[in-house]
């Protein structure tokens, strides 16, 4: 069936299909330390996205020949559950998932003191339970919390957010419909204290000026996510403290 654009994605007042303004994030809920067996874990809800992250390690590397003599090996698996999208997704890792696993790993590693744990591996498992656009960014936001929860020394948390172009407007944190029907999507991961962009991808078509605006817009999004991450991390320990008081 050919798709019909019955509804505009952005109305004349600049309001989006989910009721947001152009420069607003979706509601975010973050929880830390929710898995029993993992060394560190986190859960994120961003809009309709629901993503669970578990960290194991530092631990012995299997197979052994993959061990690196002067630093830890960071391994990452980004995976979408078969029921996370409209049409069932085969559970076998797709090429998209393999690529995202790679870029997520490369976005997190600059924040981790990998040299503290030579010959070990740090394993990161990301399961997308429900997807609604922008899963790589939401995964990264949660993954850096899970690493911190595992007690792995880090330079800072990594916050991630996307910006994109929808019907000619530049908008923050695209949802699934906006991502699919919009003109461009630009995910960014950012380390605040280093002012470092550690993930940068884009597909779509934008001018040089729009590109500059999108990069800045995405970083502004990251700046809003960062305090939420810190709060979520603290919340876990405040809960423990209160438990001890009782």
């Amino acid at each position, binding site marked *: 069936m*050919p798709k019909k654009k019955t509804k505009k994605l952005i109305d004349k007042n600049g309001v989006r299909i989910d009721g947001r303004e152009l420069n607003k994030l979706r509601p975010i809920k973050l929880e830390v330390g929710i898995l029993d067996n993992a060394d560190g874990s986190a859960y994120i809800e961003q809009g309709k996205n629901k993503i669970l992250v578990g960290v194991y390690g530092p631990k012995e590397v299997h197979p052994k020949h993959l061990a690196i003599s002067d630093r830890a090996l960071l391994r990452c698996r980004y995976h979408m559950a078969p029921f996370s999208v409209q049409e069932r997704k085969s559970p076998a890792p797709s090429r998209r998932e*393999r690529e995202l696993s790679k*870029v997520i790993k490369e976005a997190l590693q*600059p924040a981790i003191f990998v040299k503290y744990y030579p010959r070990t591996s740090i394993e990161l498992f990301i399961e997308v339970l429900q997807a609604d656009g922008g899963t790589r960014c939401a995964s990264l936001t949660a993954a850096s919390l899970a690493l911190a929860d595992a007690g792995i020394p880090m330079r800072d948390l990594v916050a991630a957010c996307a910006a994109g172009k929808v019907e000619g407007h530049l908008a923050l944190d695209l949802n699934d419909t906006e991502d699919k029907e919009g003109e461009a999507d630009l995910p960014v991961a950012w380390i605040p204290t280093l002012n470092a962009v*550690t*993930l940068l991808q884009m597909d*779509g*078509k934008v001018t040089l000026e729009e590109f*500059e605006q999108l990069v800045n817009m995405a970083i502004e999004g990251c700046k809003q996510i960062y305090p939420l991450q810190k709060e979520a991390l603290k919340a876990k320990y405040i809960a423990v403290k209160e438990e001890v008081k009782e």
Partner: protein
Amino acid sequence: MKSPIIIRVKQKQIAQLVSHGKRLDGRGLTDYRELQLETGVVGRAEGSARVRLGKTEVLVGIKIEVGKPFADVPNKGVLTVNAELTALASPSFAPGPPSENAIELARVVDRGIRESKAIVLEELCVEPGKKVFIVFVDVYILNHDGNLIDASAMAALAALINTKMFNYEVKEGEIKVKPGYTPLPVKNYPIAVTFAKINDKLIVDPWLEEEQVMDARLTITTDKDGNICALQKGGYGYFTTQQILEAAKIAKNKAEELRKRVVKG
């Protein structure tokens, strides 16, 4: 295999030179290596091209088949890009299922072609929802000396421009081949420009030993109108916003130079 000690010494030298605005092979920071391009190198393929960028060598072959369209875009042909890091091209490549590097390479090349709408996929539809043409772009790395992305993207584009589709007519739902060929509808020319960050400086077209020293990598693909259509950051380092915006400007200019070479053939 080269001795790792020599590599260490050389790596230090490469990094120091870059901070003085120089490179080991005498290039400027934003100079490409010599580019050689040949098209129509494989007769069996509908289109093909070989690109040599310095010592990096890439062969791309295009095959076209009839198949079913994706359900969500029933009136469009299908584009499939695959990359093979052949084990003969480098001691670091092994035979077997595609590595994450091969997948990333294929997907970055794919993104440039797809997002710039280089191929008019609507024109590859035979019967909406039932029959379309599938364009297979197979990237073969024959020698690895760094910057596989740019070389592969250029070879893929040159091969697509070189591609001739057989003429056909549809009789009772069946495709009948007619004599003669028409070129593939290629309407845009995406060019990838890859940067490496070494000692906090940006260089373009890193060769293998520079890739071993670099902190991070950034590929910016621009189309014929100077729009940015694909981006990919790689490697375990990072970029500042300023570096990214500087790179985007350089990429646009460099791509214009390269595009003239590739489109002319």
